[in-house]
């Protein structure tokens, strides 16, 4: 998938994203179901917003986790999976 780093990431209206204390992780909720997210997926999704480009998102994550190697690739991989599953949509920044 060719990501446009100027695009921003929006959560699909079919999903709700929240921290779930009982699961000790971030989750995506949808009609009658729940997807548990791992730490890095949670860190990426919680920073997504309609006024932030993917480039800014990656920059922010790099500042937060300076020791992480291959961070850009991880973000790309996750966004691809999330998009294929319909969890997120790409849009021009608001």
């Amino acid at each position, binding site marked *: 998938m060719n990501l446009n780093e100027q695009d921003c990431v929006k959560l699909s*209206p*079919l999903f*709700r994203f*929240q921290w*779930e204390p*009982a*699961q*000790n992780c971030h*989750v995506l*909720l*949808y*009609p*009658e*179901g*729940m997807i548990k997210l791992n730490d890095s997926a949670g860190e990426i999704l919680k920073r997504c917003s309609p006024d932030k480009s993917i480039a800014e998102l990656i920059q922010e994550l790099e500042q937060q986790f300076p020791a992480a190697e291959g961070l850009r690739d991880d973000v790309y991989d996750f966004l691809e999976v999330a998009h294929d599953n*319909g969890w997120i949509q790409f849009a021009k920044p608001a």
Partner: protein
Amino acid sequence: MTTVGSNSQNLPKPLWLLAELTYACPLQCPYCSNPMDFDQYTRQKELSTEEWIRVLREARQMGAIQLGFSGGEPLVRQDLTTLIAEAHQLGYYTNLITSGVGMDVSRVAEFRSAGLDHIQVSFQASSEELNNFIAGTQAFEHKLAMAREVKKQGYPMVLCFVLHRENIEQIQDILELAIALEADYVELATAQYYGWAWENRNQLMPTREQLAAAEEIAHEYQAKTQGKMKIYYVVPDYYENRPKACMNGWGAVFLTIAPDGTALPCHEARQLPNLEFPNVRDASVDWIWNESPAFNAFRGDDWMKEPCRSCPEKGKDFGGCRCQAYLLTGDARNADPVCSLSPHHEQVEAVVSAARAVNLGQAEAKPLLFRNPQNAKRWRNSNT
């Protein structure tokens, strides 16, 4: 409850809370999952708003996250908006499971502002005539209008169709209707033969040929609508060789609270004998889920008999459904007789062939027993 060294992450949590707010319902579907004696649970015996709020709080504290407002018809409850608002504030993902009867444009909006996440609308068929016949009321046009309103107001929408002999051959029309209504998800669920559906099984059970044809169409549409509309096709276990992992295991994920406050591991469990199901009026949700004898009765595998006990698949299907085992073999601890390894498997085959004989006109077809208070009384008088 947590002690040093214990890992509370490993205890099962009631992730799915089904709040059956009332058994009252304007529809009369002959496969209703409410108990045969639903008419005994009158509106006066229903939990109050305050009692429901306590249940919602306690279950949420224990990790419940998905909440279904169901019934009966949950729209009958005038406090539904209050309950939705409370549930939303507690962090639940809230699902309204409704026939659409009792809904109007302003209520759809009111629920939205209270924080309702999703609405599931049930249909009985894709044609007005059959829909209204099965529902026992003139509801089809209103359902269409309400489904359109649900989408218009921005909810994710699930459409649910219970499949049986009378509507299974319309599956293509059903799926086209779902596409036209812009459903996000469609549940095509074959009737589960308990309670009312069990009484009507000879009239409802589709043949193997009908199922095969329907499945082919369902799969074709699954491919066609991929990425737009998700189609769940729930196969009937009577034609399977292995049982379903019923409720994902007893007391593992699901907690149903019946209108009168009775807590059940599944909404059909009330029919099982020798189990005293606790009530939220007498005990905390924590005690009910973790400590009560009823919720522990079929946890783990100590209760299992052969062939389940030594079966390598017991961790996968948990021996199937306790209610089905009881209904068909008289002992809830037996293997679900759907399993070809069950010594009672021929019971399932007998039910299938009895239904087939009726379908082919080789045996007398009784009229459908519709779910209404008169039929509940009649049934009670002839079965006690």
